[in-house]
């Protein structure tokens, strides 16, 4: 059937801020969907609260609403726009939940708006545990024995009957939020309680554990004519028990005979047909490794993280096809965009192996619980393609950017055998490394398979890798061994380490003996049909397929896996850079390793190399492509870190030179620059050993801000208030050395703000100044930011502009730079300069309408800012106020302290825009799902320093009609100042204590700050964790409280007795 003509205007719901379990993949799918609908001639209205997305660019939809995805705001937009239909299946769980809420509210019926893709009944059938079970029973598809529980007691009753372990899955949450495996009744009680409170319908599924089964996924599609097909199947390295988002995954399946594959394929297609989904769907199955028994684990009736992975793994653009199907097209009417000759009704055939490894945040959250289970904890993932499992796996490992190039973690050699087996049985993020260590210690793979339930097939691949490692170690300079190693994915650096040589020695040796990678195409059809997809992966084989064109090209390096501190913002900038390169007449080539992103959509660039971002892999592509130069400014620290090694190899770095990058990043060099310009900066110095650090701090006076040099996202950054703490920090938190010095600055209390600037050497354009709501001390990525600044004096703004201009010129910046300032007594101090695009580029681009990454790219390619119509200075802001707010994923991570500080902790961001500051703030809070009701009980527990300030805030809450609750110390202070306060019992002091009250829903807002004397196990941590667990708005910075008060006050009337 051709596309529907009875609908004209379609609203697409985005997925909102990036959180664990709902990340950049929905920018990729949403962007594809919007473009596909536009291409078909529909008017597209998009709602998404996340500015750091390509999908919220003006040209992606006809109307882009960067507004909160809440009933209130989406309803308002629906009334204004009157779309004929809503497509909710491409915005993750957020999109589906919003659709359900809209439907429940009656507005869809009232405005006669149709839901496309997946009917509400299907969402219910797939997501409501009870209905799902019923449907599976009707279809004759097996599901593990399970029971629905609405209370903890019901959960325990079920488990008593079936026996432990059991799996707890909360209904209507994504990424397995709040779920887990319980081995004992005590564990079950904890998990079930948490799960019930997180489920919007207070419902959990208690399920017989099938841990140890093979975990298999099918990505399936169906159209309105009931044509159904499998795009990709995948097999998890980690058996059932670990969330698939936290599992190492291979595509296609590896250990299943065709009979098993077809059996599971039949089940997956039967399910998508029964749900009548028009679009994409993900079916997760568990297969007994010793029989044909299988169970359906879960069905996602929408485009998911796995479908983004499947799209990149096969080349088949699932989201684009899903959008076209949703408006009535059939699979056999849509051309396969990869081949251009075949139809979308085609099950891709792979002739390579894909490996996905999750990227976890435990390098930043060092105290977090690293155990993996049914709740996803990864913030991102890498994918690698090879011609065998060894190659794909090792390429993926070196794409992770976790400080290792290979499955070799030196620290593990020190681990005792008991710890080793514990880590093998109780999987953490680093189990792959423990497995390698176990094999090195002589454990047989049969034994390892026995204790881990990982298929011996996969373990044998690790064994093969270790065998090659031993071969390399035993045969110095042996060309045959080297060739074997390269064909199995070993990096030059690894070989160099084994041979005691440098990476360049290996590279030269390889080149001398013609051991060079070739690049093969990802074409969906295993070479059967001619394709023109410009999508390649490197491997050591016979034939190269990547033909270099005559057109001059520019290589852009992406930002690799998404992690805290380096999120989707950098992919946004990368994609914009590509667009500008293409418009300037060059061929734009992208290298990246992240399957979730828009930049790795092969239709974005002229050529996509899906490869690790290491010096070896980048140089290999450069050897072949011979680009005019490489742009490293937009790929975050990943790309900028490659600038110097690339330059050392004679590669032209376009934009700010490597020398100047170093002048901005190296403390001593930067000091020279700033002294020469006479720009004030907090006093500070660099220490390369513990004693020097203490001496410097003594001289500066406490508090001091300490951090390692060359870091991202404030990793290991701390405010230290006394000598003993600094001593502890220097010995425990960082590894200080001459090569890795620590920076110690005097800590100035004051307002923080930042600018992004574009410079071509002459002109310095400052699109805007962003004022942070939280004072210095909270990482800029975790601060709320306001544009234009609301409380900075003209003089302060002038200082900022002046210093920015001076620094940009002095550092010979060509392209983008970001500067962070602190304002102390009306004097502006420079905290740091980042000679690259920052995470605020998308936000600022959107609120100013200046496509900053594109302007900067044109500058980098040689077009002056004057030529582009820009002049030096601060761009005059428009009439609206815009607020950017961070979003956190604390509820997914156990034992991560939610206290804000100099180390970045947020995973995503939202923005709110309106005519006044308080309205914009309101929207930002709503978009961040930080809904503070206009009345209720507020719990205040703050450190002594903060008490005077807390008093003012408490008064304002009181005047709004809030009841004040406080712990004894805070309470006595407030009482002394004539505020009526209820003292809450300390933790563990019985039925009425704080935690019980929070659990019982008696507390609506929590304000908690802690002094540095207290450590991780204190009450404050419990209070914060409990707030997170019970979804109670929690504020750990008083500035944020002032902001929310501003919102509440603006919405309330004064009621005062005479």
């Amino acid at each position, binding site marked *: 059937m051709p596309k529907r003509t009875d609908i004209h205007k379609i609203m697409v719901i985005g997925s909102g801020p990036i959180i664990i379990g709902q990340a950049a993949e929905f920018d990729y799918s949403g962007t594809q969907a919007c473009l596909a609908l536009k291409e078909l001639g529909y008017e597209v209205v998009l709602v998404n609260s996340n500015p750091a997305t390509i999908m919220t660019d003006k040209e992606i939809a006809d109307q882009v609403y960067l507004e909160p995805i809440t009933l209130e705001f989406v309803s308002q937009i629906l009334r204004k726009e009157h779309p004929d239909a809503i497509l909710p299946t491409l915005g993750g769980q957020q999109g589906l939940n919003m659709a359900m809420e809209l439907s429940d509210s009656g507005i869809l019926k009232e405005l006669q708006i149709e839901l496309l893709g997946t009917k509400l009944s299907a969402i219910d059938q797939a997501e409501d545990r009870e209905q799902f079970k019923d449907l599976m029973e009707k279809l004759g598809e097996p599901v593990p024995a399970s029971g629905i529980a609405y209370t903890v007691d019901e959960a325990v009753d079920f488990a008593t009957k079936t026996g432990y372990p059991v799996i707890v899955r909360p209904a209507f949450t994504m990424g397995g939020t709040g779920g887990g495996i319980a081995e004992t009744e005590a564990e079950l009680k904890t998990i079930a309680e948490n799960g019930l409170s997180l489920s919007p319908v207070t419902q959990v599924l208690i399920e017989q554990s099938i841990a140890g089964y093979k975990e298999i996924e099918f990505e399936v599609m169906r159209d309105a*004519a*009931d*044509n159904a*097909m499998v795009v990709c199947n995948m097999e998890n390295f980690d058996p059932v028990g670990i969330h698939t988002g936290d599992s190492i995954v291979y595509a*296609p*399946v*590896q*250990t*299943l*005979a*065709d*009979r098993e*594959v*077809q059996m599971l*394929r*039949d089940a997956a297609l039967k399910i998508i047909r029964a749900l009548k989904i028009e679009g994409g769907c993900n079916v997760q199955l568990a297969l007994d*490794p*010793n*029989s044909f028994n299988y169970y359906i684990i879960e069905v996602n009736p929408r485009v998911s993280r796995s479908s983004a992975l499947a799209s990149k793994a096969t080349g088949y653009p699932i989201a684009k096809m899903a959008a076209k199907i949703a408006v009535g097209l059939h*699979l*056999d009417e849509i051309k396969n965009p990869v081949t251009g*000759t*075949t*139809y979308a*009704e*085609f*099950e*891709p*055939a*792979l*002739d*390579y*192996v894909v490996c996905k490894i999750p990227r976890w945040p435990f390098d930043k959250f060092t105290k977090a619980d690293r155990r993996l289970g049914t709740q996803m904890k990864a913030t991102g993932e890498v994918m690698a393609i090879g*011609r*065998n*499992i060894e190659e794909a796996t090792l390429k993926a490992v070196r794409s992770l950017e976790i400080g290792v190039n290979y499955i070799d973690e030196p620290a593990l050699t020190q681990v005792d055998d008991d710890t080793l087996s514990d880590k093998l049985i109780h999987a953490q993020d680093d189990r792959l490394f423990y497995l390698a260590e176990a094999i090195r210690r002589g454990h047989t793979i049969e034994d390892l398979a026995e204790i881990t339930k990982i*298929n*011996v*097939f996969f373990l*044998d691949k690790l064994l*093969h890798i270790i065998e090659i490692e031993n071969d390399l170690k035993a045969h110095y300079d042996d060309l045959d061994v080297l060739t074997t190693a390269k064909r199995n994915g070993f990096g030059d650096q690894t070989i160099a380490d084994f041979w005691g040589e440098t990476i360049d020695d290996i590279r030269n040796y390889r080149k001398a003996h013609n051991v060079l990678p070739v690049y*093969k195409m990802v074409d969906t*059809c*295993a*070479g*059967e*049909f*001619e394709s023109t997809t410009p999508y390649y992966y490197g491997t050591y*084989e*016979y*034939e190269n*397929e990547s033909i270099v064109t005559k057109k001059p090209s520019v290589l852009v390096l992406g930002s690799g896996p998404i992690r805290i501190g380096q999120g989707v913002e950098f992919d946004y900038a990368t994609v914009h850079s590509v667009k500008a390169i293409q418009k300037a007449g060059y061929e734009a080539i992208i290298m990246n390793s992240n399957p979730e992103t828009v930049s790795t959509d092969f239709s974005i660039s002229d050529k996509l190399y899906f490869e690790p971002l290491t010096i070896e892999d980048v140089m290999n592509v450069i050897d072949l492509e011979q680009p005019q130069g490489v742009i490293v400014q937009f790929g975050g620290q990943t790309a900028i870190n490659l600038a110097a090694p690339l330059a050392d190899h004679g590669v032209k770095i376009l934009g700010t030179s490597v020398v100047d990058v170093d002048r901005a990043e190296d403390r001593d060099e930067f000091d020279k620059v700033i002294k020469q310009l006479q720009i004030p900066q907090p006093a500070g110095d660099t220490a390369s050993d513990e004693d020097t650090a203490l001496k410097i701090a003594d001289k500066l006076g406490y508090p001091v801000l300490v951090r390692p040099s060359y870091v991202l996202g404030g990793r290991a950054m701390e405010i230290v208030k006394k000598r003993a703490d600094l001593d502890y920090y220097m010995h425990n938190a960082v590894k200080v050395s001459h090569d890795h010095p620590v920076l110690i600055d005097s800590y100035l209390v004051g307002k923080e703000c930042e600018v992004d600037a574009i410079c071509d050497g002459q002109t310095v354009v400052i699109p805007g100044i962003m004022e942070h709501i939280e004072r210095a001390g909270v990482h800029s990525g975790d601060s709320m930011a306001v544009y234009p600044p609301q409380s900075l004096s003209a003089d302060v703004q002038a200082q900022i502009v002046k210093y920015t201009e001076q620094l940009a010129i002095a550092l010979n910046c060509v392209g983008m730079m970001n500067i962070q300032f602190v304002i102390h007594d009306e004097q502006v101090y420079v905290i740091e300069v980042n000679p690259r695009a920052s995470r605020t580029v998308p936000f600022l681009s959107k609120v100013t309408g200046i496509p900053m990454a594109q302007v900067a790219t044109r500058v980098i390619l040689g077009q002056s800012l004057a030529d582009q119509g820009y002049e030096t200075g601060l761009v005059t802001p428009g009439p609206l106020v815009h607020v950017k707010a961070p979003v956190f994923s604390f509820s997914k991570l156990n034992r991560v302290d939610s206290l804000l500080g100099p180390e970045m902790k947020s995973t995503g961001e939202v923005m709110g825009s309106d005519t006044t500051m308080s309205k914009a703030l309101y929207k930002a809070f709503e978009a961040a799902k930080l809904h503070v009701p206009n009345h209720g009980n507020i719990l205040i527990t703050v450190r002594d320093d903060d008490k005077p300030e807390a008093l003012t805030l408490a008064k304002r809450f009181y005047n709004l009609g809030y009841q004040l609750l406080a712990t004894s110390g805070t309470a006595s202070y407030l009482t002394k100042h004539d505020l009526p306060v209820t003292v809450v019992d300390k933790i563990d002091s019985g039925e009425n204590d704080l935690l019980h009250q929070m659990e019982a829903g008696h507390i609506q807002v929590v304000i908690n700050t802690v002094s540095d004397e207290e450590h991780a196990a204190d009450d404050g941590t419990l209070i914060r964790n409990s707030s997170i667990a019970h979804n109670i708005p929690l504020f750990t910075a008083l500035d944020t409280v002032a902001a929310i008060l501003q919102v509440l006050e603006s919405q309330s009337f004064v009621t005062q007795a005479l």
Partner: protein
Amino acid sequence: MKRYLVLADGQIYPGTAFGDRQAAVGELVFNTGMSGYQESITDQSYNGEILMFTYPLIGNYGINRDDHESITPSCKGVVVHELARRASNWRNEMSLDDYLKMNHIPGIADIDTRAVTKHIREVGAMKATIVDEVKPDTVSQLQATVLNKAVVAESSTNNAYPNPATGPNVVVVDFGLKHSILRELAKRHCNLTVLPYNATAGQIMALNPDGVMLTNGPGDPKDVPGALEMIREVEQQVPLFGICLGHQLFSLANGADTFKMKFGHRGFNHPVREIATGRIDFTSQNHGYAVDRDSLANTDLMITHEEINDGTVEGVRHRRFPAFSVQYHPDAAPGPHDADHIFDEFIDLMAAHQRARKGSNFNA
């Protein structure tokens, strides 16, 4: 040990030996299935062919006792990118290497199978050989080699045999059948008698069948001219169903023509549309020849199925007789089960014909 894959056009690809060590000669074809190597290797339709898998890892789950498609595999050689070091599956009984050794089939691994596949895609399927050593005359000898045309006779059973059951009485004419055809018919309780490829109409009708099944088989349909007369007689009397080579022979028997495809269809992601309903099934395919669409114009056959991408004729039906055939494998193995309903149609056709004939009765 080093071995070489040599193509008739002079291309030489070095690789590593596995399986049997004799030299192999055959037509080199590629299969794009990502699983199912055991079924493919034991598929008699590969008789005379060297089978190359585009999926790079072959042997992962070993060889089991259940998934054979014939007792003695007859493909001439197997080409893979990487032979699994270790097979892992609960049904695994032996490695692919051991299986090929046992069945005297040579193999070659460590080949850039994608490069070879692309080459064949561009220039067409051609003769190839797997040898230990490339001599000056290896290519010319290969070019001069005439491939065996009697592959159907080789692959077919020599003697008739029954597979008794209580359902419809079906005579299966074996041109090199896949066991999965027997499995599908057995699943539907057909009482089977399998006859050799050269069975006459008289021999078939003497068994008083409710229907006749023409199976798949290797090679060029025009090399089996003897079957055409048999088909022309049988189709007038009882329901007839052809698969793959059986489909080509049915078409030839009714005046259509067949041609050799450039590189054929081998794999199981080929979408086939049933023209009458628009229904699309993903089908398992293995054919190097196809029925010429234009040649059907003045025959009694109508096209019922087509491949959606290249328009290949995938099924025909006789306008007057209860006879039809499909080019693909509704019996799957390996591949999707989407099209197994075709067997039900055959059963239904026999039932309808039965009612028309009166008297006779079976439990369909």
